């Protein structure tokens, strides 16, 4: 029952996100777009390209590389950067480890996920970024549900959830003191389903990891994790070959794989429509405690 002046939900979300991204470019001197290689940051990059066309992106893509990435992610990243003519900055967790900024976790459940925060904050400081856009969505996690579009960070990069700035209408306050910065979340209002529908509608290319493939995996606490040189098996765990795909993509050590035969975007959308588990249900990093995400965010996590 749409009249000619009604927008679809995807159009409305797109216009809102483009508005936010342009607002970042207008209000900040040195913004950056945090690119992880996951579908959310891919969609955010696509929206940014649309926001400034025919000009190039007025900010670089920043990738915080844990060194534990799927190879496909890096290939995809490099091709994307080339095709849109963007500038890429890589912050390396390996370098943070080598220079003694962080200490690597030990043991089979070790993850570099938490170490990324230091590398991210160091990269922000090194390049003097005053706004870092992330692909976080409010439907992902309960602490994120209260995050603002423009989220203020103090001089230590920390988030104070109880003292967030009021954010009304579509007026965003990016004023800050020297040394402080903002995290901005242009796709705050998108759900996982919206992201997939939009990828389908816009025919956005994705890394093959999102589609079904054969992979050597092992099962830990009910989660399927990928075989990789730095992954250590615990007693009783063993490798087997399964038909899987990624529902989210992060660091290999915390990306749970889904058993799936979904071979196309349409398949994936049907699969998600029928699923009864959230996408972060496969993320080992969130299962650590009830407030795991809130605690990481306060420290300066994505």
């Amino acid at each position, binding site marked *: 029952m*749409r*009249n000619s*002046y*009604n*927008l*679809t*939900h*995807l159009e*409305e*979300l*797109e*216009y*809102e996100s*483009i*508005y936010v991204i*342009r607002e970042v*470019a*207008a209000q900040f001197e040195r913004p950056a777009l945090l690119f992880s290689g996951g579908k959310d940051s891919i969609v955010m990059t696509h929206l940014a*390209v*649309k*926001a*400034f*066309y*025919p*000009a*190039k992106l007025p900010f670089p893509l920043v990738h915080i590389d844990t060194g534990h990435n799927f190879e496909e992610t890096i290939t995809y990243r490099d091709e994307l950067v080339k095709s849109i003519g963007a500038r890429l900055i890589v912050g390396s967790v390996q370098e943070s480890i080598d220079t003694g900024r962080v200490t690597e976790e030990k043991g089979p459940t070790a993850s570099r996920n938490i170490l990324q925060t230091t590398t991210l904050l160091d990269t922000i400081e090194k390049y003097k970024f005053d706004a870092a856009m992330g692909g976080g969505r*409010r*439907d992902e996690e*309960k*602490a*994120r*549900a*209260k995050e603002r579009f423009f989220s203020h960070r103090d001089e230590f990069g920390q988030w104070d*959830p*109880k003292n967030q*700035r*009021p*954010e*009304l*209408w579509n*007026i965003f*306050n990016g004023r*800050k*003191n020297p040394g402080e910065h903002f995290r901005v979340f242009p796709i705050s209002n998108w759900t996982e*389903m919206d992201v997939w*529908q939009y990828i*389908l509608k816009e025919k956005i290319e994705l890394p093959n990891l999102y589609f079904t493939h054969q992979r050597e995996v092992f099962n830990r606490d009910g989660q399927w994790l990928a075989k990789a040189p730095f992954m250590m098996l615990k007693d009783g765990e063993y490798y087997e070959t399964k038909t899987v795909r990624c529902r989210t993509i992060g660091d290999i050590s915390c990306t749970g794989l889904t058993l799936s035969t979904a071979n196309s975007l*349409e398949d994936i*959308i*049907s699969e998600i*429509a*029928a*699923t*009864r*588990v*959230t996408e972060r*249900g496969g993320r080992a990093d969130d299962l650590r405690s*009830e*407030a795991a995400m*809130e605690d990481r965010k306060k420290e300066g996590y994505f």
Partner: protein
Amino acid sequence: MSEFSTKGYLDMELLRFTTAGSVDDGKSTLIGRLLYDSKSIFEDQLEAVKRASIRRGNEHVDLALLTDGLRAEREQGITIDVAYRYFATPKRKFIIADTPGHIQYTRNMVTGASTANAAIILIDARNGVTEQTCRHSYIASLLRIPHVIACINKMDLVGYSEETFRSIEKTYSEFAQKLDIPDIRFVPISALHGDNVVDASTNMPWYAGGTLRQVLEGIEIGNDHNLVDPRFPVQYVIRPISDEFHDYRGYAGRVAGGVFRKGDKVTVLPSMLGSTIKSIDLYKDTIESAYAPMSVTITLNDDIDISRGDMLVKEENMPQLTQDIDLMVCWMNEKPLQVNGKYTVKHTTRDVRCIVKEVKYKVNVNNLEQIGGDLNVGLNDIACISIRTTKPLFVDPYKKNRRTGALIIIDEATNNTIGVGMVL
């Protein structure tokens, strides 16, 4: 969720609504119901809530734990901030701005209301219209939420009585005449048992209207945006540095009102220079017309100086160009408003400074009466004030346009947003 298909998604609309209330009103139960019965709560989320409920020694699965996202909120068992929740039915996608309902959270209710198309006002069938009902309705009216759904909850506790429902409906309708809400509907529900939330109730055969979900799906939202008064605040100027687009100069922004068409004659504020629209660009496409709230890029046939903070309008339909503005404000900060104090104001894409000239009166949000004598405006207060800005703003009454009639007031010492205003 299995009701979804890849077909049909292009026809879905987005409806943003707000809910205000406290645990006692059954607000969390209602939201839990909407999400759960729409299959928008996932097993791992429900499992997490069950685990937490048991750990806390609760008898029932406490759905409020789903909505209370911050550690402090879970510890204190209260909702502090606005939380945004998402669910979808095969017809629409919904964004809920879930806010606490007590008077000390007026600012959070105002925040949630600012972007809403609709408000759900929860009324306890046992208590009828109360001070809290009045407060929530006033905020909905002040923020110009076009649609209000009065949900008479806990009908199970009044024996599903039609008489009770009709009596509350009558009282509320009479009270609402003092407000400015164009569309009010009434739904008798029991959030706890699910009557008329997603599934129609068999306990209330006398009720012929739709369930809450049907009402939410059916509200006509196409006319909620202003399509009459053309307003295009320039957000960003696009000047590609490339041979192919050497002469391209595009004005990027989000249409804040009315409709702009290719070929239209436009006037630029504040310079008052005129030109015509050469093209309306949307990425690689050029389109015939743009309307609120589309984000587009407009190019003009004349090379004139335009920058962020300027506004494209039409000569025959101008906003007010003024430095003296009367506002209804909601104060958002512990630091009280200072008469003669200087602040930064953000309005559309324009930043100016202002001085507060006068507090005219304060409003008691519980009974809508003007408060005489006390003119101190502190946290959560709603007041009518006058300001004078350093440069003109291009404003419309908030009543006519929720985008060009809204502004925020920023404390110059802390950079924090400390007040919000609606142009009278």
